[in-house]
């Protein structure tokens, strides 16, 4: 059936309509088929985003299980075994199956449009990267059926998301959960490297006429830097996973301490990946802010060259800070002070970014749309997260704070308060481009304010039990510690956040069918993606654009005062 259309990977709308009139059921098959075989960067981008949203909901529910369990001391909502699985899967999922795919998704969708080209540099590699990552996610979750973990009773991985050796060795983790974890991350890493190669090449080799290096939208620089960090970071992670599998199955002793192996070796490999990973996730959030804050302040970004330099600086410095995760492992005093300094230095380029965003808003005419509200909340929250990050880099203080709930609060401030908030901003900002319809503004404001309240209830108060000595990754705690009240507030906050996410998901679905029609340029913006239809046609631009400045649409709209006169 429908072989003529099935054999065409990109059927025209007319062909599909004609098909639908004779065989309505076949139309869905054709649609699904067209998504599966697509090499179009926009479809792949949307698939990445949907894939990440599904896992966001799953890992969010795991977070709820964690918080219900910790609401009161000696709770028995879940067993210790289940709890350990849940927090391991929550962390692994959020980092590898939500954070990276959602950012790759936006990058895939936006970069060719912003650079004024018709696709990514390697469309087939792009499709391959998505599908292998998707397989990795499915594979990891298959462990719920196929694995058996610590004490032989687990199913999903239960060794924590950084999976310190030698807990992951055969002696302590019999069964196959660690194998699922390691293999899934290796596969996911292949996808990440493919996408990184693609993003990097696209930014540097695939720009439209007139787009010199210093006219690339900042998001392009950000994604090129992120891609570079992925290439630096994923290698050590994959190497560590392979060493672990050699230990487990081929009699190796890399991390097998009983045979002279080293437990610290794993920590080094993991965090050489793990710290750049934080910036892999947060840089695209900066990139969204770089695009959204100027448009809703009605001003060009302040200090473009400094922003590019700061991005490169963050990437460079963040490759040399990994051992700040290991201040308590018994490094020398020289090692501790070195990594204190290198970690503190990261705050200089990130500080430049914060100041430049504020300066962009300074003297502007700020429009408090939903994307801008999320961006402003992001500014406050990223500021706080940065400052608690400096506190953690104070290695002597880190001896107290390390592995406590203060750390958990700090990195959730980064991952939720900065990254997730900017992802929401990006949704409200670019959803009209992707679907042709606006997200509902009223629901958006409800979403924003519930999210802000929920976020601050949860993560502000989460710092305090950490200061009162509560370690992370514990399934229960003693009533005499003075942590109970704080944990109750934190749990309450997660319920408020769950409501916010509910409103968001409803808005996504509702607006897809009922939303106001957006038109090509609903925000009166300046970069190339707003010069084509919403949603853009398969080929993006009917005519290859030619640009003369960083803000080509500004030049078109203000011929009396074009940027090109100043650059």
């Amino acid at each position: 059936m429908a072989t003529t259309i099935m054999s065409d990977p990109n059927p025209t709308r007319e062909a599909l309509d004609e098909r639908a009139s004779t065989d309505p059921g076949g139309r869905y098959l054709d649609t699904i088929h067209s998504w599966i075989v697509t090499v179009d960067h926009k479809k792949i981008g949307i698939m990445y985003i949907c894939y990440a949203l599904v896992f966001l909901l799953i890992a969010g529910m795991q977070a709820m299980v964690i918080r219900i369990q910790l609401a009161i001391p000696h709770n028995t909502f879940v067993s210790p075994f289940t709890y350990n699985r849940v927090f391991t899967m929550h962390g692994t999922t959020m980092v590898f199956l939500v954070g990276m795919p959602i950012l790759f998704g936006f990058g895939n969708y936006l970069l060719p449009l912003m650079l004024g080209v018709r696709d990514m540099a390697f469309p087939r590699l792009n499709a391959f990267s998505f599908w292998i990552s998707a397989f990795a996610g499915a594979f990891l979750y298959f462990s719920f059926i196929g694995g058996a973990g610590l004490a032989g009773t687990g199913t999903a991985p239960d060794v924590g998301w950084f999976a310190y050796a030698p807990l992951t060795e055969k002696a302590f983790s019999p069964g196959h959960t660690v194998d699922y974890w390691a293999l899934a991350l290796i596969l996911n890493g292949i996808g990440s490297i493919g996408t990184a190669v693609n993003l990097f090449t696209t930014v540097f080799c695939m720009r439209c006429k007139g787009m010199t290096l210093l006219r690339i939208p900042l998001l392009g620089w950000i994604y090129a830097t992120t891609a570079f960090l992925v290439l630096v970071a994923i290698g050590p992670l994959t190497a560590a996973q392979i060493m672990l599998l050699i230990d487990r199955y081929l009699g190796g002793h890399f991390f097998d301490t009983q045979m002279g192996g080293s437990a610290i070796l794993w920590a080094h490999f993991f965090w050489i990946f793990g710290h750049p990973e934080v910036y892999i996730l947060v840089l695209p959030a900066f990139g969204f802010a770089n695009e959204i804050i100027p448009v809703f302040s009605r001003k060009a970004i302040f200090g473009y060259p400094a922003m590019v330099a700061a991005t490169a600086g963050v990437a460079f410095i963040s490759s040399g800070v990994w051992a700040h995760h290991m201040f308590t492992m018994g490094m020398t005093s020289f090692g501790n002070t070195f990594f204190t300094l290198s970690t503190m230095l990261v705050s200089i380029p990130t500080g430049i970014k914060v100041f430049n965003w504020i300066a962009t808003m300074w003297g502007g005419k700020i429009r408090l749309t939903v994307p801008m509200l999320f961006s402003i909340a992001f500014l406050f929250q990223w500021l706080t997260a940065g400052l608690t990050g400096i506190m953690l880099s104070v290695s002597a203080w880190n001896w107290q704070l390390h592995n406590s709930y203060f750390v958990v609060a700090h990195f959730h401030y980064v991952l939720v308060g900065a990254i997730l908030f900017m992802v929401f901003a990006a949704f409200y900002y670019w959803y009209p481009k992707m679907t042709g319809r606006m997200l509902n503004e009223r629901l958006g404001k409800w979403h924003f304010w519930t999210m802000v309240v929920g976020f601050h209830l949860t993560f502000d108060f989460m710092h305090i039990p950490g200061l009162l000595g509560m370690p992370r990754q514990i399934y229960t705690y003693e009533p005499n510690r003075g942590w109970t009240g704080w944990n109750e507030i934190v749990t309450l906050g997660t319920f408020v956040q769950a409501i916010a996410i509910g409103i968001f998901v409803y808005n996504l679905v509702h607006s897809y069918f009922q939303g106001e029609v957006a038109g090509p340029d609903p925000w009166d913006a300046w970069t190339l993606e707003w010069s084509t239809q919403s949603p853009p046609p398969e080929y993006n631009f009917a005519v290859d654009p030619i640009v003369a400045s960083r803000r080509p649409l500004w030049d078109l709209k203000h011929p009396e005062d074009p940027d090109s006169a100043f650059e």
Partner: protein
Amino acid sequence: MTVGGSGTWYSHFYSFGICVASPTSIFSTTSTPADKVRLLSLDVLFTLGCVFLAIVALIVHVLVHYRARKGDTTEPPQVFGSAQIELAWTIIPTLIILVLFLGTARVVFEVQDAAAPKSALNVTVVGHQYWWEFRYPKYNLVTANELHIPLSDPGNPTPTYMELTSADVIHSFWVPSLAGKTDLLPNRVNEMWVDPHKVGLYEGQCAQFCGAQHAKMLLRVYVETPEDFQRWIGTQRQQAKTSVPGILSNVDLESDNSQKITPQLGRRVFEGQACISCHAVRGTVAGGRFGPDLTHLMSRSTIAAGIAPNTPENLLIWITDPSVMKPGSLMPAMHLTSLENKQITAYLTTLR
């Protein structure tokens, strides 16, 4: 760092604001390493708090003054940057970072590189899934889960220097009142020291995920006056004080007594079972080293790494099936009869 210190006005603010009642607060410290970190942390908190307020004020100012007016569709003047301003907000943070770094470096070197005085007590801490082994090499003494150390008088310091290692996976020793945490790694020895200034019980727990029961690997440190500490050492050095004859003795227990719950029968069951493969009771055939030393079990106030009071009732529940209190504990249920379990409990309660 010279700013701040214990007597500054804002340190009081923190002690009211943050130090709510908790035995494990990092702000209620009684030992030099923890004190130094607390003072440093207050300085850092104060400095960064000022930075926070300054930047928040900037953002709020911008939001208040530069909101678009309704109906105003004109564009504001476009400004692309300013080298002077950008230089300023590169240099000022660099200077702040430099000050914070120097303050940190000083505390790191002072705490980490402090040489042990001759009067120091040495203790070896060995982490196990999910309990703590404490060895006092000088006294040839091994105990578990409850660490006893002497008070250290600043005039005549008797600090405790610990060598930390692990028998299996990574653990972390964390008693916030005494010092920051130090990890226990297998195949490696780490060091830390404490010099508590106040007698009392200090609590903490394992701070590195180490498996199913990481949450129930609690720590109790008893700080005692030097006299009390010496008395404790004296008691602990003795062999098991039980008067009950062992399995190898010639005492003939009459068979019709075997239904009774007596320490004698309990010891017989204990020594006849696999208990002695893992547990030691000095002075008897029990010499296992995989589990906690039980020689002076009843001198400890808790069992199972601090999770339950050491009462005969709890002991009975524990030895009947450890997974009731601590699912995932490596001690197996021995599937003895309830009579035998009661007999063992009767024996254990004689180990004073």
